[in-house]
Each structure stands twice: as C-alpha cells, then as structure tokens.
C-alpha cells in the first residue's frame, strides 16, 4: 500500500540556488527531496500515488504556483502545498490559504519555519491517505451487502428501530433482526455507532436523501471520524 512508502518533498522553484538550498535543508532532517524547475516539469513526472508534500514558489515563469494549486484541485489531487514567495502580498496568500495551502512563507525564511510547515504538510498527507484508505475499506465492505441488507443498513443509519424498518420493507421484525446481524458481521462493526461511521465513510449517507425514510437534520456531521 502507498501508506507505507517513504514520503517525498517535491520542490518546485525556478531559482536553482533556492531549489538546492531547500533540498539540502530537507535532506538534513532525513527527508527525501525531489526538485523541479517548473510546474511543467513537475506535472510531467508527478505520480499522485506517491505520498509527500509540495514546496511551491508562487511566482515562476510559465505556470505559476497558484495556477498549479488550482490545476491539482481540478484533478482531484489533494497533495498538501507549502507556498514560498519572494514578495508575498496579502490577497495572494489569502487566495492560496483558502484553496487549502498548508502555509505561505516569505523569503528569506527561518529554516525551522519551513521545516515545520513541511512536517505539517506531510502529516496532513498521511492523514488524508489514511482516511482515503479507510473510505476505500468501508466501501469494499459495503460492496459485500445484498440489496436487502443495504436497505436495512440505510434504515439503521437513519436511526429507525427494527420494527419501523420491518414495516417500511413489508416484512417481520424477526427478519430484520437477522439481516441486521449479517450487516454487522459483513461490515465488521462491533456497535451501531461503528456501523454508522463505516456507512458514512462508504458514502451511504450521500444516497440517504433518496430513501423514503429520510430524516433531514438528523444526519451525523461529515467531520466525525472513527
């Protein structure tokens, strides 16, 4: 799995001196740098499966750092970005931070500031990848359910009692109980709370509004985590 691969600090800066200096700084804390002198070169070689973070100069000839940030977002690539700039202005940094940048650092910078930002970025990447992997896991478990079991799961997630679910599905409470046991088993959930979280990760909640028993306002917050 990609989780276990060594992270790489991608450095994109058109200035050779700055590029080499940051790479050296990164190596001094036992991390692996890879340098690129333009956005174009970076996009040519970038592999989204590779864990890591991006240290990006804002202003460069050709495509700028901000443009790369927008392009990656459109591609669905969520690699954390640390911006560095020679002459940052406030609107530019606001724009970068709003678009999800980890930090916006002005040159010349203190090494610790940049290294901290890089560590933060790598940690965020790790978390994102872990969450993504958990989502993939939950989706895989969900895929093992039969259509009837999915209907039962939806009812459980919506907070309905077995009796209510049975009535809605036109069957007995006993049958629902059986289905529910199999759902818990297949989703490898120890509790209803865990089942709800798994269902949520797997994206069951997204389809919830289409269900006949939808209870608006009762949905768990998307931020909640396992």
């Amino acid at each position, binding site marked *: 799995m990609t989780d276990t691969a060594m992270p790489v600090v991608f450095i994109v800066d058109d200035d050779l*001196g*700055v590029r080499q200096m940051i790479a050296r700084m990164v190596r001094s804390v036992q991390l692996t740098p890879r340098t690129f002198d333009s956005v174009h070169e970076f996009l040519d070689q970038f592999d989204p499966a590779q864990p890591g973070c991006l240290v990006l100069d804002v202003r460069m000839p050709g495509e700028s750092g901000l443009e790369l940030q927008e392009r990656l977002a459109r591609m669905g690539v969520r690699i954390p970005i640390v911006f560095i700039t020679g002459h940052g202005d406030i609107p530019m940094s606001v724009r970068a931070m709003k678009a999800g940048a980890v930090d916006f650092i002005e040159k010349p910078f203190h*090494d610790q500031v940049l290294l901290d930002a890089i560590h933060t970025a790598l940690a965020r990447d790790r978390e994102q990848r872990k969450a993504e992997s958990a989502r993939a896991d939950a989706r895989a478990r969900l895929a093992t359910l039969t259509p009837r079991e999915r209907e039962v799961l939806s009812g459980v997630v919506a907070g309905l009692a077995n009796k209510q679910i049975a009535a809605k599905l036109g069957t007995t409470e006993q049958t629902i109980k059986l289905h529910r046991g199999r759902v818990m088993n297949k989703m490898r959930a120890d509790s209803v709370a865990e089942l709800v979280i798994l269902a949520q990760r797997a994206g069951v909640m997204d389809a919830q509004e289409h269900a006949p028993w939808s209870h608006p306002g009762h949905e768990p917050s998307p931020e909640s985590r396992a």
Partner: protein
Amino acid sequence: MHKPGIDDTHEERRLLTSIIAHIPSGVFWKGRDFRYRGCNQAFARSAGVDRPEDIVGKTDYELAWEKEQADYFRACDRLVMEENRALLNIEEVERQADGRQAILLTSKVPLRDDEGRVCGVLGIDTDISHLKQVENELRQIRAELESRVQQRTAELSAANEQLRREIRDRERAEEALRASEERYRLVSELTSDYAYSFSVEPGGRCRAEWLTDAFSRISGHPPSAIENGDWGRITHPDDLPIVERRIRCLLAGQSVVNEFRIIARDGHIRWLRDHARPIWSESERRVIRILGAAQDITDRKQAEEEARRHQAALAQVARLTTLGELAAQLAHELNQPLCTMVGNAQTAQRLLAAPAPDMAELRDALNDIVTFGKQAATVIKQLREFLRQQQPRPIILNVQRTIEEIAGLLEADARQHAARVRFDIADDLPAIRGDPIQLQQVLLNLVRNGLEAMSLPQETPRELIVNASRHAPEGVILRVSDNGVGIDPATAERLFEPFFTTKPAGLGLGLAICRSIIEAHGGRMWAEPRPDRGTTFCAVLPALGEETSS
C-alpha cells in the same frame, strides 16, 4: 522720160525671171493638164530634177514625191483651178528629193489667160522647216520656262504653306507656353516649393538669375534678400554650418540635399528642404551655375518634433514606471540570493549539530553561500551603475509644466490606490534649471510613497496634495502631503538614509534617491509630520541664478 516699149518688156521679163530664179522659195506653175510648165531652181532641187527645164511636161507622179503626196498636190491643184480660187499658206510635210522631211508653207493661185479663164496653177512654197524647228525650240523653251515658273510657284506656295504652318505652330507653342506658364504659376502658387537659378562668378560669388515667387511667400523676404547668394542673412544661426557646407559642396561640383531653418521676415522659423545641383562648365573647368528647388517642410518638421516629444514622453513614463518597478525587481534580485544564503547557513548549522556531520553536504552549503553572496554583490553593483547613469541633464524649465506633464500618471496611480490627488500649483513660479525627468521621478516617488502610507484602511478619504509655490529667497518649494499613517518624528531624518525602510517589500532607496536628485539640483529635501494626520515631504529648488549660491 521713160517710154514703154519692147525693150522695156524684155527688161521686165528678164527681171521677173531673175526674181523667180533667186527667191528662196520654190516657184512652179502647171497647166490645166496638171503638167509642170516651169519652176525655178529651188523647186527643181526639191522635186529631184537637175534643172528647171527638166520638169516641163512632167506630172507630180513622175517626180520625187510619194504617191499620197502627189495625190494631195493634185487635189489641191484641182481645187484651185476648178474653183478658181487661191489656197494660201498650206502647211505640209513633204519628203524632199534628197530624202529630207521638210515642212513647207505652200500657197497656190489659179493662172488665168487674157480672157480670164483658168489656164493653170501657180504655186510657191517656202521651206519653213528651220522656222518650224526654231518655233519648236521656242515652244520647248517656253514650255520649260512655264514648267519652271510653275515649279517655282509650287515651291513658293509650299514655302508659303510652310511659313503659315510655322506661324500656326508658333502660335500653338505660344499658347502652350502661356498655358504652361499659367500652370507653372498655379503650381508655384499651390505648392510650398520654390526654384531658383544662381550664376556663379569665377570667384565663387553667386548672383540670382531667377527665383520663383514662392520664396517670398515662404520667407516673407523679397528676392533681393538672397540675390547675392547670401543665404546666411536669413538662415537660423544654428544652421549656418549646414548652409556653409552646402555652398562648399555645390562649388565643388556636388549635388546636395539639405534641411535647414530660415528665419522668416515675421520672425518665425521655417524649415526648408533644399535640393541643389551645380552646373559644371567643361570649358571653364568650374561650376558656373547652381540650380535648385526648396520646399517648405515646416509642418512636417513640427509633426516630427511632436512625434519625438510624444516618444520622449512615453520613454519618460517608462523610465518613471521603471523606478517603481526597479525597487520591486531589486527586492526580488536581492531576496533570492539572500534567501539561499540564509537557508544554506542554517542548514550548515543543523548539519554541524549532528554527531557525524555530512561533510560533503556541508561543503556544498558553504560553497553556495559564497556563490550567492557574490551574486547579491553584483546586483548591488548594477544598481550603483544604474544610479550613476541618472546624471542630471539640466535645462531651464517651467515647474508648472513639468508637474502637469505627469499629472495624468500620478492620478492614475492614485486611483489604483483608491486615493485622489489634488494639485495646487502657483502660477507665478520662477523658472529653475533642472532635469525635468529627474524632478518628475522625485515627484512620482513621493506620490507613490504617500499612497503607500495610506494603504492601510483609514476613515478619512485618502487624499494626496501636490503643492508647488514660490519660496523666498531660494525659488520653488514642492510639497507632497498625504493623510496616511504618518511618521515618527524621531525617524523623520532617517527616512532619507539608503536602505532605511518601513515597508515590508521596500528597498529603502526611493527617498534616498529623491534627496540625492534634489541636492544635485542645488536644493534640499526634508519630511515633516502634518498637524492632524499624515506626512508632508518638502523639496526646495533654487531659482535661476540662485543655484550657485546655495
């Protein structure tokens, strides 16, 4: 007394016979039977008989004549005798006994007996061949004469016709000339050109031969102003060398095209484009005439000047903008190596803190510090050179106009910063000596400075005041006031120190440059806090004549 008698008759007869014998005509007589009764010697000869007596008894058919001729003679004789009348002056061509074709003039009369009856015919013929020949020759001569007269007449009328044609041609030519002159006059009136011809004396002196009217129309001067080739009299003093070189080239046999200024009679400057050609005399081995034309190109020159001013203004704006951009560019140029140096130095420290420092990495880091330190020094050196290039090029200038020239630029700048600029320029400012572009740079810098001082959100509307007024005794004082954050009086003097800055992206050179420019103009510069809010930057510039004393 003479008494007629036989002797008289005899004498008379002898005389008659003699006459007949000797007259130069042929005389003959015939009887009614057409036979000859006698003839004289001349006739006998033509008839081909030796003696007159030999003819007696013969008819024409027995003589030398051809038959047709004899027939004709017989017919004539018959006519004379039968009709009893004379045939006079019959011209006939008759073949003579000697074979000669003779032209004879013959007359025949009837011979009558005593009773008056016709008994024969008497003929007399005269050879008029010679006469005829003369007559012929005469006729020929006359014909020739006539033909000659005719020929001469034809020649004369041809000459006449030629003359008439020439007269017609000449009239036409004169008409064409008049039209051409009229056309020329119109062209000369309508165009801004004039043409001239100067004769050149052996000593090089010139004298106008002709000069078209446009000269006076353009210059206002009478033709006499340059009739001696003395162009210098009306040439702009600055262009005298051009005019002098022009005449030298022309006298050396070289065609020239020159543009120079003349001073018109009304004092205005007119630009001329003069194209002149020398005429070389092979026999005299020198230039004997100068032909030329000149055109009034004042309008074109003014347009060119306008365009040049416009271009200079653009270049000036570019330079002014450059000053602002220069600071940003410099900040970037210095920041990159600085960032690299700091980062490498910190990395080196970090590497050294490790139990077993990576010496290769450490060496690379230190090498980069040296490399980029040198690069930063180069940037600084380039900056110094740039500033040195900004040597003032002073002219006598009008402060009001100098400010007005960049008012638009300042207003545009202010709009970008959500501020407005108010201009308060006195109209009694003395002239000063200075480099307008540098003074505009100072003004632009002060305005940008003021705008930046007002960049933070503030309650009072952002307003800059650009004020210029008379400042006794020195000259002109420029003031740029903002209502921004203001300055700490303690640091007011430090503002002008190089590399002192309160702005995050500033280089701290703007005000230092401003002050050095003002001081190079013999003036001084300072900043003072405004009583309520903001700062005023002041620059005093000495008036003309005061600059050396300050």
